[in-house]
């Protein structure tokens, strides 16, 4: 479905953020992309969706393919038309207009009114909360509802591949679960998903495959079950220290450096 190979992205002609990143999202699968702040997760999504331009970023090497077609450096509108939609980090809903209008904006690239109506019905079906608040101004929704709206808006383009950037950010644990279930449901309806998350436990619980990103490179990848069992992942991303509790007296004042065996 999506195949990124050896991607290099430079901001402002100087800052190298992605250094030869490769990853694959298989058709119908959920792939998790994990990594700390600044690892380059959002930059990867921008590179795929053509949103580097407003950030003065540029792809200097590598390619992005969708179903075998080269879309490296394609225009954002073009990428959406090719069936890739994204839920941006921090939701980014249009706060001043109504829920309905937000959804209509998400369906901007659709050709006919019937198509829009179809997707609209599907989205309201998936998010009954939104159906109740169709006429309210989006900025007054709660955080969870806003996240649902952001996902629904992306679905209005009827994507074959959905990119989600930290959908669990700032949500209460129960809402995180709800978001997770919805992503799984969307996936079951036939949409491939690339899930970017800091909440590794949540992401790996639904993903089939996972990549770990650090300083612009993939340092580890494998089936989600293997990653969940991996000792390093457990320590650095899942917050477990090999089963035994650690005493604070043993905590070193320097940051433990991790070298990944590539």
């Amino acid at each position, binding site marked *: 479905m999506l195949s990124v190979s050896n991607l290099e992205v430079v901001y402002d002609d100087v800052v190298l953020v992605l250094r030869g990143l490769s990853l694959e999202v298989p058709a119908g699968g959920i792939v998790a992309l994990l990594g700390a702040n600044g690892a380059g997760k959002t930059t990867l999504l921008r590179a795929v969706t053509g*949103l580097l331009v407003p950030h003065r970023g540029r792809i200097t090497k590598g390619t992005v393919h969708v179903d075998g077609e080269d879309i490296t450096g394609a225009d954002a*509108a073009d*990428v*959406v038309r090719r069936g890739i939609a994204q839920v941006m980090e921090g939701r980014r809903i249009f706060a*001043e*207009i109504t829920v309905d*209008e937000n959804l209509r904006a*998400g369906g*901007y690239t659709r050709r006919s009114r019937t198509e829009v109506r179809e997707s609209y019905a599907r989205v309201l079906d998936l998010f009954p909360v939104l159906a109740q608040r169709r006429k309210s101004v989006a900025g007054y929704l709660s955080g969870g509802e806003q996240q649902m709206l952001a996902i629904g*808006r992306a679905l209005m383009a009827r994507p074959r591949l959905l990119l989600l950037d930290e959908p669990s950010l700032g949500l209460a644990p129960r809402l995180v679960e709800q978001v997770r279930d919805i992503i799984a449901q969307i996936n079951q309806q036939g949409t491939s998903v690339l899930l970017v998350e800091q909440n590794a436990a949540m992401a790996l619980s639904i993903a089939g495959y996972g990549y770990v990103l650090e300083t612009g490179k993939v340092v580890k990848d494998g089936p989600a079950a293997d990653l969940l069992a991996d000792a390093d992942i457990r320590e650095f991303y899942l917050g477990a220290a090999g089963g035994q509790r650690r005493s604070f007296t043993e905590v070193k004042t320097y940051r433990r450096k991790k070298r990944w065996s590539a």
Partner: protein
Amino acid sequence: MTAFLQNCFAGLSLGSTYALVALGFVVIYKSTGVINFAQGGLLALGAYLGYTFSNNLAVAFGVAVLLCCVSAALVGATFERIVLRRMVGQPPFAVIMITIGLLFVLEPLVTAIWGFEHKQVNNPWNIRTVEAGGLVFGVRDLWTIGLTAAVVLAFFLFFRYSSLGLAMRVTAFDPEAALAQGISARRVYATSWAIAAALAALAGILMAAGPGGLTPSIGFIALAAFPAMILGGMDSPAGAVLGGLVIGLAEALARGYQDELFSWAGDNVSVIVPYLLMILILLIRPYGLLGTKEVRRV
């Protein structure tokens, strides 16, 4: 009382012109974050194009009005396409300077083509008037008010219900998120420029059909529409229309009662009224009458 109503009518007509120009300012400011100082130049260009259609090519005046709006829209969109598109993502200040540059290019261009002489546009309204209830209404003023109302209504329907209008609103709110929905920012910017230029041209030709006729200085009216836009709130289309009407009424009333009330202040006190009003309202409401405060939501 009659005199008061008569002044109000004159104010409405003047205010309609201001409203058209101010709406053009807002459309561009809202979608691109740039104040288009060339609005006056586009207005003059539109008015002279209307003169050419009406007098030199002898098409019916209604058609000439339509043609001058369409051709001004093309000029606006072309300018956006050729010059401003390269400036996307650059600081707004640089773009504002470019629009000032455009103003200074348009002015000599207009005088080079059409000269400095005072011109009269062939039009069916001229100085004809109708009388009703003891009041005298200029036919041109009635048309100005009517056309402005129709155009403003059409604009609001477009802005509210059409998908391009929605695209313009969301691009104004969050350009990057709009891009992520597949909304082409280029089309939005080009449309805003086309709309603004057409509104300016309409204001221009309506002015030129009036008793003042057509001179190269016709573009100065945009300077008076500028306070209308600020007073209404820079990012509010409804505010621009309201601001235009308020300024127009204030100016006309000040002119009407000048001899009685402001004789101590000289002959042209009405000219400064728009600016005084702007300062006064900004002191009370810094965001203008209908402008939005910068709202930060988390």
